[in-house]
């Protein structure tokens, strides 16, 4: 069953006039206003250097905004105390382009790692990890090390790790960036399933085909500003133009 986001409800993610300028003077984001309702599936698109990754870093509170406020689940991230940050991150599942798997741990151990950090008991770890590995269709590869997996399989492990603690938000930064089109599509299916279970997904991507095919909400960022916010959008605002560009 597909969950339809309620755009009238109170947003779970809310950017209010957010600016981000790095100490080097680079102005990465300017006056970002963005509301994301619970259960939404949102693509962040835009050219390299547009500010997508900065927006993701702000969302996981690796960076603080220079100006403006970011609310997630009613809590303002900029004012959040450092000691509370780990507990916020436990609500979030993170997926990255470079997978960020630990090479000396097996598939099972990598996924279990997210639960060990939370201090979950062994029996809970076992059942949840088995379920997550099953969700990403990697059963049978539990004892394999990341080096012996394909790129797509490694990204599945990363997704299993991101969803094993049942987070309310999944934040993905170019999750298909290192994958071939067929594998990228498989990975997207996984994200759709996770979203269908109720998790809000925010994904920064360059993958035009996927964005155009899925027709989900698209927020385009250009030169640090929101250039477009379509509820059912495409990678480029002018589809015909994008076709020309693609050719």
């Amino acid at each position, binding site marked *: 069953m597909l969950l339809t986001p309620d755009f009238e409800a109170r947003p779970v993610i809310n950017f209010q006039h957010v600016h981000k300028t790095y100490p080097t003077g680079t102005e990465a984001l300017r006056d970002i206003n963005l509301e994301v309702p619970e259960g939404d599936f949102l693509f962040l698109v835009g050219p390299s250097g547009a500010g997508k990754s900065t927006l993701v870093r702000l969302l*996981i509170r690796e960076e603080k905004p220079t100006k403006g406020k970011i609310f997630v689940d009613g809590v303002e991230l900029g004012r959040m105390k*450092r*000691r509370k*940050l*780990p*507990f*916020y*991150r*436990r609500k*979030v599942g*993170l997926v990255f382009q470079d997978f*960020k798997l*630990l090479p000396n741990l097996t598939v099972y151990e990598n996924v279990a*790692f*997210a639960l*060990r*950090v*939370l*201090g*979950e*008991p062994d029996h809970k770890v076992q059942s949840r990890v088995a379920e997550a590995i099953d969700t990403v269709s990697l059963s049978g590869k539990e004892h394999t090390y990341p080096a012996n997996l394909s790129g797509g399989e490694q990204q599945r492990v990363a997704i299993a*790790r991101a969803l094993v*603690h049942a987070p309310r938000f999944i934040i993905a930064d170019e999750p298909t960036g290192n994958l071939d089109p067929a594998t990228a599509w498989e990975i997207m299916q996984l994200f759709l399933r996770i979203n269908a279970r109720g998790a809000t997904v925010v994904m920064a991507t360059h993958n035009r085909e996927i964005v155009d095919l899925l027709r989900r909400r698209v927020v385009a960022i250009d030169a640090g500003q929101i250039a477009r916010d379509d509820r059912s959008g495409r990678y480029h605002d002018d589809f015909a133009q994008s076709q020309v560009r693609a050719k």
Partner: protein
Amino acid sequence: MILRNLKFALNSAWQSFWRNLAVSLAAVVSITLILVLAGVNLLVGHAFSQVLDGFRQKVSEISINVSDDTPLQTVYDFKQQLEGDPRVTSVRFITKDEALAQFKSDPQNVVLAQQIEGNPLDAKLEVHVANLGDVAAIDTLARRWSGVDPTDPTNYQGDFVNRMLELSSWLSLAGVGLLLILLVVSVVIVMNTIRTAVYHRRKEIEVMKLVGATEWFVRGPFVIEGVMTGLIAAAIALGLLVVAYPPAVDRFKADIGFIPLSYDPAFISSLAFDLLLAGAMLGALGSYIGVRRFVRI
């Protein structure tokens, strides 16, 4: 949950210690050397304090020579007066005969004793003073007493006592200074070792932070690893010192016989406690500082 986290931290620390064995061993060797130096410092300090205690014992006992014509009652009265003084722990009256017998019993005085005719020695009041600093006051009191031998009132040597007290405080200060330098050096060594370990595991730390590990969850294994390194180094240093201590004392005694240095097995347990505690604390502190910058969420 705390137990589970502790188990995770212990496992993690143990794995990290072995995974970075070369770096871990380098740290163990460096800290061992420092703890051996610290241990030698403690042992030498202890030996000298034993020697100084012996001297203190001697100089905190003052011998008051009683003039031959002093009536016995006067002596007893003064003895009683001294015994009532809170600064005095004991007073012993030694008669002329006892003083002579004591003199003769000393093997150093054999030749001299044969030449003595009659008994030229004074009767004595041997007064033991609780605090070395009060000996001078008791000496003054004795010199004012009517029964004291005016030609040789007491055996008190103020200058010697003062010099010894001064030497003792300088030695303690030097010991403490040396210990402090050694402590700082070892903290820096552990800090750098742990930084190397942290660098090797930076990816793991990044993932830990991203999945919601608390700072202490990330830091815990490194602090435990530091404590482990410190304890192993302390155990090795202790072993080396225990083996080397008795022969070193024997050698010292053979070379510099006039300083009454002695082997004190009872001090070993105190040394063991100090070294193990220092090793654990240094390891923990070095790791805590070394890892701080990297684990900050």
